[in-house]
């Protein structure tokens, strides 16, 4: 079952944690960030955003489109931004509350543009992703209990010229999971449509659609120190409608940020805080969270690396910063890889980039299913990552040293020799053990009898099984029909 909000062992007496960046580090980062926001400022070409910044007390140069944000405004914003943000699910029991503090949850990646397709022999090929791929991916994310949310992972590219691809993606998401999700490619002009679709899900109940928004959004500043108009508009509109919005900087150290990780941590902090401040100016109390897909630009290869240890450190640092600010970290990159296929490279890079931010207590770590720096999604990788996540959750538990867990009674009773297998305490606690579904822990003989499958092939079979046996839809048939009809209408208008 869904086990959300597992704490890393920070500020807790139990569990495993990684206390990187101490209080004085965090304070210094914060102080210099304020310096950057006050003296360098942030550029946006959006006149509405500039006006909002100006009215709130920023020094705005309307010609250069630069807003200089004073420290007290950022402070006000951080105080009024909620420390808890609820991501509503169609199945209320699956609502996820992101809490500031070291509480770790997991999300798949969004939004890839290619699908790595496997056949029964483990052969694979990559191709443009489609609506059908998205539906499959949603089904799998809904099934995998490692994921607390089921973000759409992949673009419905078969619709880009034929209709409103964004609405198709939202519709497929609504119809194929009862978990919460964040839509990775919102259009600022699409908000009314997204709202209409949520309303359809709630049987026309406008009040509910407003109170329990189903289509959460994200937006990205442009590093260094810019926010494009689509992005400011997403923040403003989401804030006014109280829709959870995560501001994700995708700064690249050495490219769009300073080469030092510390420097890039700082610029991306300024970018995200500028976005969060804008949200709070637009509407005090708006549910906005801190996000990051900040990494390095590999300067030897000219690529945005998604599997680098530097990314793991940056994501962990971002988790610590958002704890310092008392707002949830609503997306930190983790469980990422640069590999093109689910192989050894993917395994290690995902383990590393997932584990480090988890130990630092990032509230939502996104990356499941991702390959190739986020270009490609593999359904098999989703299932494999579910195992990776499951094991990291076990790591986070750490050890709880109590007298009862030290088990002196048991040790005395079994004494020398013998075994603990049949003890009542063993039966009672055996579900504490990690239990991967794909990674093979059998002896070679059983493994061979099972077909000597590697992880990717085993995952492929699991994918087929899930797609055949799991029905993720939480909506009535009529509601699904209404959603389809709504999107079809918008497609028609789009083509006109």
């Amino acid at each position, binding site marked *: 079952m869904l086990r959300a909000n597992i704490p890393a062992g920070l500020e807790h007496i139990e569990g495993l944690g990684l206390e990187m960046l101490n209080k004085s580090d965090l304070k210094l980062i914060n102080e210099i960030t304020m310096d950057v926001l006050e003296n360098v400022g942030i550029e946006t070409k959006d006149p509405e955003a500039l006006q909002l910044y100006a009215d709130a007390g920023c020094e705005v140069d309307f010609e250069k489109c630069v807003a200089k944000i004073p420290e007290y405004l950022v402070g006000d914003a951080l105080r009024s931004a909620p420390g808890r943000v609820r991501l509503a699910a169609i199945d209320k029991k699956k609502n996820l509350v992101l809490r500031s503090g070291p509480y770790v949850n997991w999300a798949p990646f969004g939004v890839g*543009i*290619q699908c790595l397709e496997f056949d029964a022999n483990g052969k694979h090929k990559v191709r*443009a992703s489609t609506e059908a791929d998205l539906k499959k991916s949603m089904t799998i994310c809904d099934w995998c209990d490692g994921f607390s949310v089921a973000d759409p992972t992949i*673009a419905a*590219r078969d619709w*880009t*010229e034929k209709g409103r*691809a964004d609405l198709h993606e939202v519709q497929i998401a609504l119809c194929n999971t009862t978990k919460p999700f964040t839509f990775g*490619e919102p259009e600022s002009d699409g908000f009314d449509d997204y709202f209409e679709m949520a309303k359809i899900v709630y049987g026309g109940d406008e009040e509910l659609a407003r109170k329990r928004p189903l289509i959460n959004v994200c937006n990205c500043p*442009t590093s260094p120190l810019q926010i*494009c108009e689509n992005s400011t508009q997403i923040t403003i509109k989401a804030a006014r409608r109280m829709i959870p919005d995560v501001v994700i900087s995708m700064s*690249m150290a*050495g*490219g*769009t940020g300073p080469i030092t990780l510390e420097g890039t941590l700082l610029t991306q902090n300024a970018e995200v805080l500028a976005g969060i401040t804008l949200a709070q100016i637009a509407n005090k109390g708006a549910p906005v969270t801190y996000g990051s897909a900040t990494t390095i*630009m590999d*300067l*030897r290869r*000219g690529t945005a690396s998604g599997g680098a240890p530097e990314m793991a450190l940056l994501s962990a640092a971002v988790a610590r910063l958002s704890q310092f600010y008392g707002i949830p970290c609503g997306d930190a990159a983790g469980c990422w890889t640069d590999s093109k296929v689910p192989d050894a490279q993917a395994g290690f890079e995902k383990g590393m980039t997932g584990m480090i931010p988890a130990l630092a207590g990032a509230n939502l770590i996104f990356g499941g299913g991702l390959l190739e720096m986020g*270009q490609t999604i593999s359904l098999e990788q989703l299932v494999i990552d579910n195992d990776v996540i499951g094991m990291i959750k076990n790591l986070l538990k750490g050890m709880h040293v109590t007298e009862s867990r030290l088990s002196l009674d048991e040790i005395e009773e079994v004494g020398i020799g013998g075994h603990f297998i049949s003890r009542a305490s063993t039966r009672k606690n055996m579900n504490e053990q990690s239990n991967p579904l794909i990674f093979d822990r059998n002896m070679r003989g059983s493994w061979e009898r099972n077909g000597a499958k590697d992880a990717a092939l085993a995952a492929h079979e699991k994918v087929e099984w899930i797609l055949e046996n799991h029905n993720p839809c939480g909506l009535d048939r009529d509601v699904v029909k209404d959603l389809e009809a709504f999107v079809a209408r918008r497609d028609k208008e789009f083509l006109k």
Partner: protein
Amino acid sequence: MTVKDEIIEKAKNSILDFDEDMAEKAAHEALKEGISPLEVIEKGFTAAMEFIGGQFEKGELFLPHVLAASEAMNAGIAVLKPEMEKRSEESKSLGKVVIGTIEGDIHSIGKEIVASMLGIAGFKVIDLGKDVAISRFVESAQKFKPDIVASSALMTTTMVCQVQLEEQLKEAGIRGQVKTMVGGAPCTQKWADQIGADIYAENANDAVAKAKALVA
């Protein structure tokens, strides 16, 4: 060494040292001595840049070096430009490229790298920036008469604008006079074939090689 040789040597070294100030200084000195700007560019700046480019291809230098060298070169050339125009000298170029990130798309880093590398390779590059309206591509193609019109698209939602670019170049009646080049992560050779673009390149080196082959 004559004064001229010394200045040209200095121009060369400014590039090899990635030193904008030195490049400007060398350019100013050349102007003071009445040396042909073109000669300073070709024997000094470009010669050094070719060396850097070669090192890059061999994998001995990397993007940070190449871009810094090209910025130093641009700084030097900017100083020489007015005098060059006065003398109506023109530096040799392999051809002209109009490049931009396509409408709706603000992913600019990849495009900037491609633009710089084309410049370094000897193309005259007119960089229109990011989120460039199709009509601006077309107008620029009419105005600058480039050999290549290059567009970058990083998103599936914006790459479809490359189709419109093909169409509007046709409508303007200039598609026959330019070659089109497309790139950016979602683009592929298949995509280029499908929309009728002349060149697809996966990265900056590939773009340079293919652009060179085209004008050869």
